[in-house]
Each structure stands twice: as structure tokens, then as C-alpha cells.
């Protein structure tokens, strides 16, 4: 009887240890994925702001639009430099403001006008790709964060502190809707 108990307990401990080590590896992978997606996010949003700045300084637009876009892109870039790969509230606000500036200025007429200029199609394609990639990279990042949070909420994970001292990851919430005139460019 005693032997049976010992065997049972050993087996139970083995199962728990196996589970914990698998889960630790899983968490490690998830944290790594978040690091990667966050740096992609950082890069893509910088690229988006740079593309807008390039368009603003290309002389393809009227002066008012130029100032509007350059200002929005510039403040987004300043926030990005100040905060690195973090996305605190002020940064999200200035990225959302850039989105709204794009939405307001890049209507169908303006887009058609740029497209008619020499190399215009190319400029638009570059801008559209940057805007799209930024939006996608945020979705991919938030996906990674949600997967990680789901695991970290598990009782055993919290009990054994499997995630160590890593802070709880947070999703990045901002408006990055692609302006309708730039879609399918």
C-alpha cells in the first residue's frame, strides 16, 4: 500500500514538473514573440511617419496640407524617439492624430492628383504599404499580447511565478485605420 502511494506521489510530482517546464518554455516563447512584435511595431510606425514626412516634403501637395501632414508626422516621430519601443498614452495619441490627418488630407481627389504626377503611383504605393504594414503590425502585436495574457492568468502559472519578474504585457490601442482612398493601392 505504502509503495503504491509513493509511486502515485512520484508520478503526480513528475506530471506537475513536466507541465511546469513545458509551460515555462511556452511563456518564454510568448515573451520572445512579444519582444519581436513590439520592435516590429516600433519600426513600422516610424516608417509610416517617415513616409508621410517624405510625401509632405516632396512638393506634391498644397502648402496647407504639407504643413498639416508634416506637423503630425513630426510629432509622431518625436514621440517615437522619446519613448523607444514603448507605446504610452501620449505616443498613441500622436499616432492616432497622424492617422486622422492622413484620413482628412488623403481623399480620393488628392490621391488621384498625386497618381497623375510623375512617379506619383510609386509614392502612393510606398505610403499605402507603410500605413497598411503599421496597422497590421499592431494587430500582430496585440495578438501576441493576448496569447501571453491568457497563459499568465492561469492559476498554476501565478502560483509558481513562472513568468518571473516580467511585467504584464499590454495591448497597444490607437487608431491606425487605413484611409479609404489609399486602400488597394
Amino acid at each position, binding site marked *: 500500500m505504502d509503495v503504491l502511494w509513493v509511486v502515485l506521489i512520484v508520478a503526480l510530482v513528475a506530471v506537475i514538473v513536466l507541465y511546469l*517546464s513545458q509551460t515555462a518554455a511556452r511563456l518564454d*516563447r510568448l515573451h520572445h514573440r512579444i519582444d519581436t*512584435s513590439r520592435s516590429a511595431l516600433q519600426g513600422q510606425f516610424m516608417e509610416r511617419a517617415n513616409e508621410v514626412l517624405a510625401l509632405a516634403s516632396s512638393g506634391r501637395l498644397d502648402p496647407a496640407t504639407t504643413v498639416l501632414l508634416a506637423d503630425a508626422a513630426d510629432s509622431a516621430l518625436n514621440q517615437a524617439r522619446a519613448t523607444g519601443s514603448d507605446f504610452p498614452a501620449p505616443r498613441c495619441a500622436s499616432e492616432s492624430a497622424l492617422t486622422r490627418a492622413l484620413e482628412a488630407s488623403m481623399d480620393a481627389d488628392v490621391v488621384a492628383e498625386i497618381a497623375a504626377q510623375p512617379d506619383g503611383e510609386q509614392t502612393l504605393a510606398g505610403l499605402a504599404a507603410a500605413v497598411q504594414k503599421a496597422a497590421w503590425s499592431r494587430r*500582430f502585436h496585440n495578438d501576441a499580447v493576448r496569447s501571453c495574457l491568457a497563459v499568465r492568468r492561469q492559476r498554476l502559472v501565478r502560483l509558481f511565478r513562472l513568468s518571473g519578474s516580467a511585467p504584464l504585457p499590454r495591448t497597444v490601442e490607437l487608431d491606425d485605420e487605413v484611409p479609404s482612398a489609399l486602400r488597394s493601392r
Partner: protein
Amino acid sequence: MRVGIVCPYDWTSPGGVKAHVHDQALALQRLGHEVSVLAPVDDDDYPLEPFVVDGGKPVSVPYNGSVAKVNFGPVSAARVRRWIKDGDFDVLHVHEPASPTLSVLACWAARGPIVATWHSSQTRSRALTAAYYLVQTAMEKISARIAVSEAARQTLVKHLGGDAVLIPNGVTCADFEDARPLDGYPRSAPTLFFIGRIDEPRKGLHVLLEAMPAILEVYPDTQLLVAGPGDQDDAIEDVPEAVSRQVRFLGLVSDADKVRAFASADIYVAPNTGGESFGIVLLEAMAAGTPVVASDLEAFARVLEDGRAGAMFTSEDSADLARTVIELLGDPARRETLRRAGRVRARQFDWAVVAREIEQVYESVTTSGERVENDMRGQFVGRLARPRDEA
């Protein structure tokens, strides 16, 4: 970029996902990428394209209520690891990862930038629920999820949580343009075209056959061309002789004959009653310049822009279908409008456009410069299946 794509289903038999992977590989190659496709190969005599790597012979097993030909087990896992190691990919792209196939094995075996595409809008199978922990671990490695349709995206969100970006199926428009009609076509009387499994009720051939008497009353010599596998005698068993003699069965057609059949028809009819998450055939017809009449399924309405790029009728309503077809046959100007609108719409889904979007997803997940490698961490079973020279 070096791209490794995993096709979950047999490469040597026709199928939607296989066709998608094939066209995707070609489109990515045209953009200058190096592509390797790992796929199950059932028929050893099939002439494999140079970019396809044999993923082993699939086994027929019952899965999710039907019989599927898939690959699994340690031998397949070892093959996947070998392919990942030899491929040295910048990005790994798996299709239909939530199925017991090479795709989930690849997710499980690899680390690095992994992109996955969801095709079907199927509900979660019991097998998946049972193996949830292991599958979940594999799913968690996917850096970017793509859904080919809104229905597929909703399925994914419901069962796995999170989100996916929508990149639709592509169509290679050039393959469908300027096709030569079949011999003897166009006829002097109207020709309608249907393609799909004729014994699969959801493809809706019976709805079209029930609409035929009314159509024949107005256009007596109308012919219905039917392409697709299934028992022809069963299909017209209960159909009046006046209708059945106007039906011509082509059987399972080659891709080339499919294109020619589109070019032979005045109208392509898609009477599907459900189960369609996208509607690639509609786009093929539109690329070929054949006006489309389709049931008002949500997926079809999206492709046809709520009737702007093709005519729609109430699903499963034969009388409405007959009315729509008769109207269109009597209105050449509207057919011409639909022909043009259809061509424009199809071009938005051209593989050149779609592949560019897929490329942008790859660029989004590869910014760190990491490559695809074998993943051994926390995988006791995985270690047993590692490539031999590594062990």
C-alpha cells in the same frame, strides 16, 4: 526572401487550398522570392513542380465527420524538421494550421517568423479540443494570422480569440482572359454554365434544374453545361425529360477546359445554398468575362459587391433564379455592363495584388532579422523526431 510554404492537403488531387498554395507560390516567385512548398504527395507518378518538396504519402483517416487524407506521426514530423533545416527560410507560411496535418507539425517544429492562413469556416472539431494544449502551443508561435474571408476570420476569432488580417483568395486573371470557347460554342441559343460537385446538395445544382422549365419556356433551346464530379444519372433522375435533354455533362474538367467552358457560356450560375466562405469560382467567371448569376449568400454578395458586379437571386428560390436568368438573357446591354464590372472587380483580386499584400505581412514579421529554425524547447516528443544527423 526565402519562403517556406506548407500545404496541408494532397498535392496530387485537386482542391481549393492546394490551388491557392500553388498560385501563391507562383505569384511570390514572380515577385522575386525563393519559394519551397512542402506538401503531401499521394500519387507518385504526378509530375511535381520544381518548387515542391515531397512531404510523404498521406493516410486516409476519419476526421471531423468525413475522411481526410493527411500526414501525421513521427516520420512526418521528422520530414518537416528536415525541410525546415534545409530550407533556411526567412519566413514560414502554413495553411489551415488548426488541422491534423503537416501544417500543425510545422508550427510545432519551427520557431521564428511564422505566418498562417485560415481558409475554412468550419467549427472546431472534437479532436482539436482534445489536443488543445499541444495545438495551442503550436498556434501561439504564429506571428501573423491571415484569413481569406470574413467567415474564416470570424471562425478563427471565435475559437482561438485574437484577430486576423483579411487577405482574400487570389485569381490569376491572365489565365482566364481571351479564352477560346469549347468546340461548337457559342451556340445560337443561350448557354448556362454550372461547375461544382453535382451530388453535393450545397452546390445547389437541384435549385438550377428546378429553374430550368421556366427558363426553357422563354428560351426553348437553352443548354445547361455542367462540369464537376459526381453521378450524372442520379443528378437528373427526378428531372423531366424536357429538361434533362438540354443538360450536357462535361464531368470533371481540366483547368484549361474550365476556362474554355466559361468562355462558351452566356451566363455562369452559382446556385450554392451554403458552406461557401469565399467564392473563388465567381471571380474566375468574372475574369473570363462571363456574367454571373449567384445566390445571395453573404460571401457571394461581398465578391459581387451586392449585385453591382453580378446578378443575385434569393438562395434556394428556383423561381427567383429563373426570373433573374430570363431577365439577363433578354438584356444584352446589362450583360455587357456586368461583363465589364466583373472584369474590373476580378482584377482587384488578381494574384499580383494579393501576393503584394502577403509580402507586406512577411515584411511586418521579419523586421528583427530572425530566421526560421527548428524549435526543441520544452518538447520531449519533438526531440525524438529531430533530424538524424542532429541527434
